[in-house]
């Protein structure tokens, strides 16, 4: 008979929260879906549970039960990251692990066929429990026969439990208190009012009566508990890129030849993706390099090593790590082979390999592709915005992601707070609005230039920049910008200065720092 185990890390998001805010340990605390008094409580710690706070309540409701109830959100990405780490860990104990899609911290493991690796199921379960403890996680591990049964028992018990027979499992299931399960609060409350405390009590209700009164979800729970229906065990399937490994007979350092090698295999990989109705979103090329050959200067392939200083331990280890991974991301998921090769070429030319490669691993990661994307295989080039997008993608590939940005206007008082640079993903057709106001062109310096403390008192007048500009002959201002008292107090008195040569400079006196700064120039 197949055996199955459930690993339950109770209130995993709660634990993540307490790890982030250790001072909350020992106080009633909850995880909520949003930072509002009406936010829903998703997870509670034992102190809060003891005070009657339950998942499903509103925060304000919980606060009325416990005056000092702490609350915060836990981002889904944080939970997903931890679940992913746990999954990796559990894969060390069973090749087949299912991650609960509804409850973070719940996993099912196939426990069959492990007798050669572990003396007994008990030892296996205990090892899992120990691994979890070593990771700093409290877990219940229950080995049994039915997917729902092991889940329910794991919810109710702590530690390691191996249920020897289906009968034992059934008895344990009947003893599980409904309060341990993450039931809909209303359903739980109604069942409690009917005097039903355990799954055994719940199973005494007629199935159709449950459906009639409480709906499909409750009926399904009843059926799962009764064993009249089963959820299949669905082990997690790791993401499979289309990949290949290229072993080179001789280490290859020439980028052109390497490009041809990549191209030879790329077409096949793209076909694999296309068959899965996917387009390539990322191409990963992993070079294994051979340092037995002549050393090359960092940054330029083929140039001799000229640095007389012996390489540091870090350099050596990095070099002997024999790996370099390049990730090429097109603007959109694509199956356009020419475009992708262009990007690969740019990357290899911009950042050549420090040593000849002896092996290349190429992985093409896909994303769901629409019909249009699949049509790229038809090779119908035409001039449009996407061409510009591709050009920008080339720039990004050559110079990095931060190379292509655009200015976005922001509401702020400080000049530098009135705009921000943001990555430009796609181009749009411009639609300038006619302005009734005259436009001043003012060049802002990325960083204001300090002018010191006493520039106005020099004998020859106020020389702001250099002697060629001459001294200041007129000034307008002050125009005061102040604020930020809740973070860092700012107080700037701005002036426009006209120099003898006719330059118009934009300076300010920084009150808190007691210094003058040149912030820009009118052109």
């Amino acid at each position: 008979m197949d055996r199955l185990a459930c690993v339950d890390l109770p209130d995993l998001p709660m634990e993540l929260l307490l790890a982030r805010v250790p001072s909350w340990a020992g106080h009633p605390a909850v995880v909520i879906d949003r930072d509002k008094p009406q936010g829903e409580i998703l997870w509670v710690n034992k102190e809060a549970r003891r005070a009657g706070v339950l998942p499903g309540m509103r925060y304000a409701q919980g606060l009325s039960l416990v005056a000092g109830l702490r609350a915060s959100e836990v981002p889904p990405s944080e939970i997903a990251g931890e679940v992913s780490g746990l999954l990796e860990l559990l894969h060390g104990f069973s090749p087949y692990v299912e991650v609960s899609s509804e409850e973070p911290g719940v996993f099912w493991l196939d426990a069959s066929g492990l007798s050669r690796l572990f003396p007994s199921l008990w030892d296996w379960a205990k090892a899992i429990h120990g691994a979890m403890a070593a990771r700093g996680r409290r877990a219940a591990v229950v080995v049994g026969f039915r997917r729902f049964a092991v889940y329910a028992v794991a919810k109710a018990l702590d530690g390691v439990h191996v249920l020897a027979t289906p009968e034992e499992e059934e008895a344990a299931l009947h003893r599980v208190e409904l309060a341990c399960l993450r039931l809909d609060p209303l359903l739980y409350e109604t069942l409690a009012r009917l005097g039903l405390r355990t799954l055994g009590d719940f199973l005494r209700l007629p199935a159709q009566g449950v459906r009639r009164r409480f709906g499909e979800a409750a009926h399904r729970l009843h059926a799962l508990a009764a064993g009249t229906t089963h959820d299949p065990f669905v082990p997690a399937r790791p993401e499979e890129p289309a990949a290949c490994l290229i072993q080179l007979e001789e280490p290859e350092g020439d980028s052109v030849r390497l490009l041809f090698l990549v191209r030879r295999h790329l077409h096949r990989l793209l076909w694999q993706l296309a068959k899965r109705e996917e387009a390539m979103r990322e191409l990963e090329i992993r070079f294994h390099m051979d340092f037995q050959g002549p050393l090359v200067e960092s940054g330029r392939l083929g140039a001799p090593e000229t640095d007389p200083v012996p390489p540091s331990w870090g350099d050596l280890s990095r070099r002997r790590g024999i790996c370099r991974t390049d990730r090429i991301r097109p603007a959109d998921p694509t199956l356009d082979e020419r475009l992708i090769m262009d990007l690969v070429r740019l990357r290899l030319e911009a950042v050549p390999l420090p040593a000849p490669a002896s092996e290349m691993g190429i992985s093409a990661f896909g994303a769901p592709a629409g019909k249009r994307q699949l049509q790229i295989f038809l090779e119908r080039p035409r001039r449009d915005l996407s061409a510009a997008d591709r050009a920008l993608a080339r720039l990004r590939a050559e110079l990095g992601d931060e190379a292509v940005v655009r200015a976005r206007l922001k509401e702020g008082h400080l000049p530098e707070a009135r705009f921000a640079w943001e990555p430009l993903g796609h181009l749009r057709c411009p639609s300038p609005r006619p302005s009734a106001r005259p436009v001043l062109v003012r060049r802002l310096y990325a960083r204001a230039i300090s002018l010191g403390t006493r520039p106005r008192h020099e004998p020859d007048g106020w020389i702001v920049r250099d002697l060629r500009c001459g001294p200041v002959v007129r000034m307008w201002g002050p125009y005061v910008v102040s604020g930020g008292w809740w973070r860092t107090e700012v107080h700037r008195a701005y002036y426009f200065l006209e120099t003898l040569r006719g330059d118009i400079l934009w300076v300010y006196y920084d009150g808190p720092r007691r210094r003058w700064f040149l912030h820009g120039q009118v052109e």
Partner: protein
Amino acid sequence: MEPYVPLWVKSHYSFLEGASSPEELVEEARRLGLSSLALTDRDGVYGVVRAHVKARELGVHLVVGAQVTVGVRPDGGGISGSPRRPKGEGRPTDSDLRPLSSRIVLLAVDRAGYSNLCRLITLGRLRSPKGEGCVTWEELCDHAGGLIALWGGLSWEPEPAPLAERLREAFGDRLYALIARHRQAEERQEEARMVARARRHGLPLVAAPEVLYHTAARRPLQDVLTCIRHKVTLATAGRLTMANSEHALLSPFAFRALYEDLPEAVERTVEVATRCTFSLAELRYRYPSERLPDGVTSSQWLRRLTFEGAAERYGGRIPSEVAAQLERELALIEELDYCGYFLTMWEIVRFCRERGILCQGRGSAANSAVCYCLGITAIDPVRMDLLFERFISRERAEPPDIDLDIMHTRREEVIQYVYDKYGRSHAAMVANVIRYRPKMAVRDVGKALGLPETSLERLARLVPHHGEVTPWHMKMAGLDPQAAAHRHLLRLVEEIQDFPRHLSIHPGGFLLGHEPVHDLVPIENCTMEGRTVIQWDKEDIEELGLFKVDLLGLGALTHLDLCFRLLERHRGVELSMAAIPPEDPATYEMISKADTVGVFQLESRAQMSMLPRLGPRRFYDLVIEISIIRPGPITGGMVHPYLRRRRGEEPVDYPHESLRPVLEKTLGVPLFQEQVMKLAVVAADYSPGEADQLRRDMAAWRKAGRIGRHRERLIARMRAKGIDEEFAERVFQQIQGFGEYGFPESHAASFALISYAAAWLKCHYPAEFTCALLNAQPMGFYSPATVIEDAKRHGVEVRPVCVTASDWDCTLEPTTQIAHCDEGGWETRSPLAGRAEGGDPDPMPRDAFAVRIGLRYVKGLGRRDFEKIEGARRASPFTSVDDLVERTGLDKGVLSTLAQAGALERLTLPRREALWQTLGAKRATHPPERVLPMDEKELVTAFSELTPLETVLWDYRTQGHSARFHPLAAVRGQLRSMGLPTAAEVAAMPHGRNLRYAGLVICRQRPGTARGVTFLTLEDETGFVNVILWPDIYARHMATVKTAPLLGVSGALEVEGKIVHLIARSVWVPEVTLGEAHGPSRDFH
């Protein structure tokens, strides 16, 4: 030479924009050496009265004005191109005006200008949602008379070509171009544009930066207020907040430096202020005239009504002293031209009588024989020797204040009657400004600072309703008081205290005017439909000496009215306030035992602990009882001397024979405001009006120290009369505690009438009393749970809610006593039995009726649900749960609540079975399309019976009380096993006994007069136990005392006569699980 005048100044009455009070602005102006200041709040004159008072005090000239929001209609507004509307044509009613960023500041030159300003603001406000206002250019021009307009501000809207000409035409030389400088670069262009416009149209420039606070230190608060107004945080506010802190009042030097290139614009500020000669002191107010019979003056009409009423009151023979008093009062009323006000009140009372709405005048109006004869009040001031001058005095020259209590459920009828009678333009309700208090401040300021809302909610629940938010509160909420954001929070919460947040309505104050009210003060909309409200509150009205009609809701009158109706319906006894037998010994006996739960004014914990000491035996004792439990007499140290004299433990003496008539009825101890005034008249030769001024100064002594000027005079004159100096000093100390903290005798007497009526009904008709009290909820001191438990202890049978028997309200049902009456006769006779010969004596016993709880008490059951039940059961009685479900069509939630409340027990048992059935009934199923047919048999499921504790718990959860058990009766076995006695057993224990007791907390109090002592009232199924916690004990157990619904107390018993107190040594939480089986407690009110 005048330095300059700030002409564009907004106080914190520009809600959530200005960051200083009008008083602070005036004081700062004075400090800076400015002799004039304008107050120009946004679309309102909310702050002008306070500014006027402060300006008068400091000798600053106040220019009254407002910044008015102007908008255009989507078609571009009414100026450009469109012909002018003829005067008198209906105003536009469009509410889709788009506000412009142009600023128009209007300043009142004269009285006519002020009227125009008020009318214009009213126009804009009444068409807009609450809190907003917007007028058109056309309307602005129509109201230009007597107003100076400063036109400017930041505006990029294209200027309609004829606009400037039209404004120029309307305002003439009273139109100025406003040059506002706040040291912002963007202003230069706008200013250039403004100057060009001014030159083009020949407008003089005037310098007027926008002032939002009196000093720059308020800038952070102004930022926060802006964030609150726009519902953003400081981090996301962007340019919604001001760019800098250049919005403070400037010194003359700084102002001239700011406008050094425009000296003529600075000079012009003085010119503008000089032109504005209007002062609020010019406001003349006329009370509206009543419609009178032909040829009769209001004075004659009042006289006629008064004497007709007197004849009725005194059975046709008006006693000579009454007639003399009436003559004296009528002469003064006529002299002061108050006749209209009395006639209005008479009209309102007459309306109430005609509609059967119970009402009664309260307060100092009961000092007036005219009010008594007009039926406004119910106390005979002549018989009670009440002081008329407490009500009206020539010296005071202030309008009288008649407060009319109206049964609270029908007050709205009276309010709408007043609106209908006088019209919306001549009657508007007085405002009540909602101000920041700690809880709201923590939430709003914290949000603006970007703090987590959950943390703020936690903190807000911990801070007190009034007072300071301290680092200790922060720590309790798990927040670090040293964190920068939290320090900002503490400081800003402190600063924002008392700042106006929005406008609300006074509970019942009306301003009526002969001229339209909107000539005096703008009127605006309220959230509540059918209500309009003026922009001034009660204190503003009083300050300006305007007449206010107070129509207040009083639950006790509703209670009495319902009780009278029950008596008439079930016993055929017709009763009214006047018909209740006076001076009933049984009633006083009950009162003296402090058996007064539900009795108006006598039910509070403090009153109940005083009643056995005072032992009221006649009506006047009740008047004293009501007056004596007030902060005034308590802090004045009058309670114990009075009690000792009353018990004969101390001789009743008078410091001077001349004071005997004044103090005789209170055994030589002054207890009422009138006595204080009479003392001043008799002992210190004050005139009655001066004596009233003394009372007013006493009321304000904490604020202004105005009492000091009376001290010397009082003591010196008393000494001169031969009164011992020590006594004179003591009297002065005593009367200092009065003022607003003491009751006038007339007010106490009015309340005592209601109290006596309620007590009499409780004493003789407890079932009717309880039933009416439950139907009048919410009102009174105690929760319905306590009222029901008290009724049960008095032998009233309280029957639980039942779907087949309960009405919407609680009702009376015959008990078995009625069935027995034919055989054995009545054991208990009604107090009215045989009273009226041949009339309708009440032949039924006291316990002839039981109270059936009404369905209104089932939470979540609405009136419409009840009507469905009522309609179905009228057709035929329900036979089963399915029958109920089928014929009423109630939804699942309501049905399950009814089942849990035990309302279906007559249809099926146990309650869990009923719940299961209602959940599965055909109409209640979910989802409907997957329902099994009703005839399909379902496996029978056996559900357990509820335990007694579960029964109580379910009752409380669904109704907030239990008609079946007291929660502690359900766990009495457990409590017994812990060796805990009942309240009845505690009451029988001797003085000094050490004991442990546990009860439900129904009241927590820490009065300011008790020097930190905390009082708790605990309840169980047998009665109450009063607990006293000394400050150190309270401090040690504060969290438990404040939060535990079931509390255990260990301590020693203090018994003084019939007064029993448990003096706590420690408190604890008993290990008994009650869940939600407890009612709400009355905490720290």
